[in-house]
């Protein structure tokens, strides 16, 4: 009875789908009266809820009593660990509490201590997050190329951005690159293996024109970027913002494949391209 797309339509309404899905949902809704009315209902419900329901602030009595409670809590703790902020990395510490400040704060009225807690809950969380992100991503944290790759991939999925030259024939796509980018990447159609060549596109990042070869695998698009290799090597496999990225070098070219397919599918294409590349390239 309910359209099978209803959950996806809802996700679209809630801003939870990527550009490709959004486009598909919009196209679907053009033909599906049920989903069109679902979208109207969703908007209507949201409007009424946000307009008609009250959004009460916490009563000031509650605010005060929590403040008092936390003051007491702080008072119980030994001076050295007076506030959670002290345990945070050095960045937060000077702004927050030397033990003496905390000791004074305990005798002072509540408002004196509030900033401590505020800095604690807000600031330290952020610092922890930043520190953690650095620790986890340290080797590639500064590698802006990966971010650019993902951006370029996402941008390519916007309507009419995917390909500059549309062709499933590598003999059309490859020569096209010669006039539009600085490199001549491996181009091949692997339709038999499930990777259909859609075409090519010129992108610009890393201060140079970059070739992008576009493949389709099932419902997913894979962008294979290629540019003249320079600078630090990129990680062989990594994931950014949910997109998988596979990088390899062949001859003097740097290749990076970006997609939201599964790892196995992405690696499948990577293997095929490497094989085709080694057969092609004399170096």
């Amino acid at each position, binding site marked *: 009875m309910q359209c099978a797309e*209803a*959950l996806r339509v*809802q*996700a679209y309404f*809630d801003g*939870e789908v990527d550009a490709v899905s959004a486009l598909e949902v919009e196209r679907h809704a053009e033909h599906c009266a049920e989903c069109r009315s679902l979208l109207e*209902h*969703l908007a209507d*419900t*949201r409007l*009424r*809820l*946000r307009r*008609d*329901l*009250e*959004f*009460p*602030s*916490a*009563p000031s*009595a*509650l*605010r005060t*009593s*929590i*403040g008092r*409670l*936390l003051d007491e*809590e702080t008072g119980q703790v030994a001076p050295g660990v007076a506030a*959670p902020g002290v*345990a945070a990395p050095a960045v937060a510490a000077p702004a927050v509490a030397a033990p003496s400040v905390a000791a004074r704060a305990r005798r002072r009225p509540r408002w004196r201590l*509030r900033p401590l*807690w*505020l800095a*604690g*809950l*807000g600031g*330290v*969380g952020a610092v*922890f*997050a930043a*520190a*953690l*992100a650095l620790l986890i991503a340290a080797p590639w944290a500064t590698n802006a190329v990966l971010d650019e790759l993902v951006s370029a991939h996402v941008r390519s999925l916007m309507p009419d951005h995917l390909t500059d030259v549309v062709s499933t024939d590598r003999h059309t796509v490859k020569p096209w690159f010669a006039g539009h980018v600085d490199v001549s990447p491996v181009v091949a159609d692997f339709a038999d293996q499930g990777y259909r060549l859609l075409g090519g596109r010129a992108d610009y990042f890393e201060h140079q024109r970059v070739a992008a070869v576009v493949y389709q695998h099932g419902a997913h698009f894979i962008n294979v970027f290629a540019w003249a290799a320079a600078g630090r090597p990129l990680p062989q496999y990594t994931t950014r913002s949910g997109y998988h990225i596979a990088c390899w070098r062949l001859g003097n070219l740097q290749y990076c494949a970006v997609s939201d397919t599964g790892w196995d599918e992405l690696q499948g294409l990577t293997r095929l391209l490497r094989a085709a590349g080694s057969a092609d390239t004399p170096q």
Partner: protein
Amino acid sequence: MLPHLDAAYRFARWLCRPPSDADDIVQEAFLRAFRAFEGLRGGDVKAWLLTIVRNCHASALEQQRRRATVPLPDDYEAEGSPSPESVSAADEERRALRRLVAALPEEHREVLVLREMEDMSYREIASVTQVPIGTVMSRLARARAALRGNWLKDAAGEPSAVR
């Protein structure tokens, strides 16, 4: 200003029956949050805090149930009922909407409130309610459909409530 206190309070008001229990829940939640703070590693502080609010509510409910002394009141409008003369049609509509949201099953009500009132993403809601994103999506759909169905029924059944 305590960060996210208003969000925590609003969320607790929607969870608790009666809503006046929200004060206690929020107080307890902030105390727990304060004590557990050093254990927080990155992540979204608001979602983390609301998770604690939700846990506090769950354990309070569990305690009540074990003691089995307090029957759960069904009247969410208990406090602050205005005098009949001051009730406009628009007020009446607002109160009806509030009653309808409050009447949703808790697992539906919480995702709806987090999405529509707190504007949280599916991922954040999933982390607060501790269920997979797919479950968030289906609960949200059911909550919205039920709410809409009930208010159409409400409007049809009580013509006096709408102007």
